[in-house]
């Protein structure tokens, strides 16, 4: 052991800086989860603050907030995962059938572009469409249906659709590239043999492409399920402009924790919600991984 440490001291030295960074960013905060069981205040610090038992959790689950944000988080994620999968796969299969090389590359380039924009920029784009007076939709599209001057930022019922559309716009293109990479990996001989047997294009897609893509779809979906309790904070915080009027349909665990921590300074509630998210998240990742492992040993994360 000691001899090995001396022998490999240079390699160990290489590992040192990154190990320290991980220790600061990931490991120390892990031990901080017990804050949820403390009645924390800034003066006494984490160690000095008195224990609170389960009080923070009692307060959290006594309000309707906990259930609302949980339901919102899970519902948005389920819809995003399912529709994202279907759209990405459909687009990947379709792009694969575009035989003009140049056009195919052009479509792919353009499709990926939204993903490179930050959520702040995306919030401006949504705003440009929905601005209560000047927005393109409000000014030019809604009047065609007989509506005038709608302030979407006051109507919570519209936001599941708006957020869904925004999310798909931002992520479907890049998602389809991953599936496209998998399709390109499928052996040509399979298609050649199918053609020999007189299979139509449609039959080739149904009988070859989709079945061979299934493992990739299953694994990516399972991995996404591990994140069922986390959400894209930027999407829910910036795109909605953090509008209080929209909370009933736009508040998710991440925005709730952030608000508790920064805006309301309610550390007890924030850390309880935080703990709840971390623990459930952990079991979801473990569960998702063991499911992946059961289906196919090679594709499990660990």
């Amino acid at each position: 052991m000691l001899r090995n440490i001396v022998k490999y001291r240079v390699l160990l030295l290489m590992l040192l800086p990154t190990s320290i960074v991980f220790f600061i960013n990931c490991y120390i905060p892990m031990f901080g989860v017990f804050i949820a069981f403390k009645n924390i205040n800034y003066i006494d610090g984490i160690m000095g603050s008195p224990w609170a038992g389960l009080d923070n959790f009692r307060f959290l689950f006594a309000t309707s907030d906990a259930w609302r944000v949980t339901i919102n988080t899970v519902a948005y994620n389920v819809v995003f995962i399912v529709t994202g999968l279907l759209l990405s796969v459909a687009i990947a299969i379709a792009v694969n059938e575009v035989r003009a090389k140049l056009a195919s590359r052009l479509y792919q380039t353009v499709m990926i572009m939204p993903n490179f924009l930050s959520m702040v920029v995306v919030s401006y784009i949504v705003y440009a469409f929905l601005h209560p007076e000047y927005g393109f939709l409000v000014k030019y599209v809604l009047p065609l249906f007989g509506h005038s001057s709608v302030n979407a930022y006051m109507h919570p019922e519209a936001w599941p659709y708006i957020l869904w559309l925004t999310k798909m716009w931002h992520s479907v293109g890049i998602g389809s590239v991953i599936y496209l990479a998998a399709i390109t990996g499928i052996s040509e001989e399979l298609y050649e043999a199918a053609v020999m047997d007189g299979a139509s294009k449609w039959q080739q897609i149904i009988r070859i492409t989709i079945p061979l893509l299934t493992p990739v779809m299953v694994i990516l979906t399972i991995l996404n399920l591990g994140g069922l309790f986390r959400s894209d904070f930027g999407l829910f915080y910036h795109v909605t402009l953090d509008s209080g009027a929209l909370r009933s349909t736009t508040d998710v665990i991440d925005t709730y924790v952030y608000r508790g921590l920064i805006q309301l300074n309610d550390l007890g509630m924030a850390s309880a919600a935080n703990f709840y998210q971390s623990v459930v998240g952990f079991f979801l990742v473990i569960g998702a991984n063991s499911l992946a492992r059961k289906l196919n040993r090679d594709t499990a994360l660990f």
Partner: protein
Amino acid sequence: MNKATNVKPYQKVSKLAAIVLHTIFIVFSLACILPILLIVAISFSNEKLLTLKGYKFWPDEIDGSAYHHLFANSSTLMKAYGVSLSVTFIGTLLAVLLIALYAYPIFRKDFPFKKIFNIYLLITMLFSGGLVPFYLLYVNYLDLKDTYVALILPGLSNAFYIFIARTFFQQTIPEEMIESGKLDGASEWRIFFQLVLPISLPVLATIGLFTTLMYWNDWFNSLLFINDSEKFSLQYVMIQMIRQAEFFKNQLAGSGVALLVQQSVPTESLRMAMVVVSIGPILFVYPFFQKYFTKGLTIGAIKG
């Protein structure tokens, strides 16, 4: 068989299908790009016409005054641009170096502590303390509020990229190369910097570009840690501007003051001009991205 495009007969789709496919993708491509162009169009619009006719895809009159205003009067913006550029540059360099430094030893087959450091990495992907302890550590214990370190340090730990780099090393760096380096009397550092890194350029570029994008687009760390206006990043200034505009409107609506403010400064077009300026550098690195990143993603998809 069509010689020119080298497409095998069975691969062809019928003419009708081809037309349908192209139509779908042209519409889809437009849907991806038009919203961005709307922002550009607004930024080049005349402020008065904007308030009369709303946001349009085609400005009635091309007007560059928003940009003039942006560059002439806005020291806040220039400062923010500087902050974003430096944080992105330093952060990316450090991140790529740290990732390579960690990925290399855990790739080495002869390294006896490989497993321990693998697990050390894996655990960070499984469990996280979450926002509250992270925030308290940075602010109360490390005293990093209003520092550039708070903008760079969080982005330096990324287990996923380390696994990608390690997988790449496993696939491209032959064991013999390291052995022969040793026989020639090269030190471990020399082997790493002069033999391993040059071959690994594709994966370093992929990770570097992803990291660049991550730092450039980051607003979360500014939101959490920065109160000092001297240290606002570009994304953070944009967050503030969209919120303040709403606040302004609600407060001053109908008081006549709003109109006055609007006349002196082209607020609507100015804000969109700022967004356009913030997208600029991304479009600049985009071609490099395009070249590397399909490869990067494919490598990442292989079990890490």
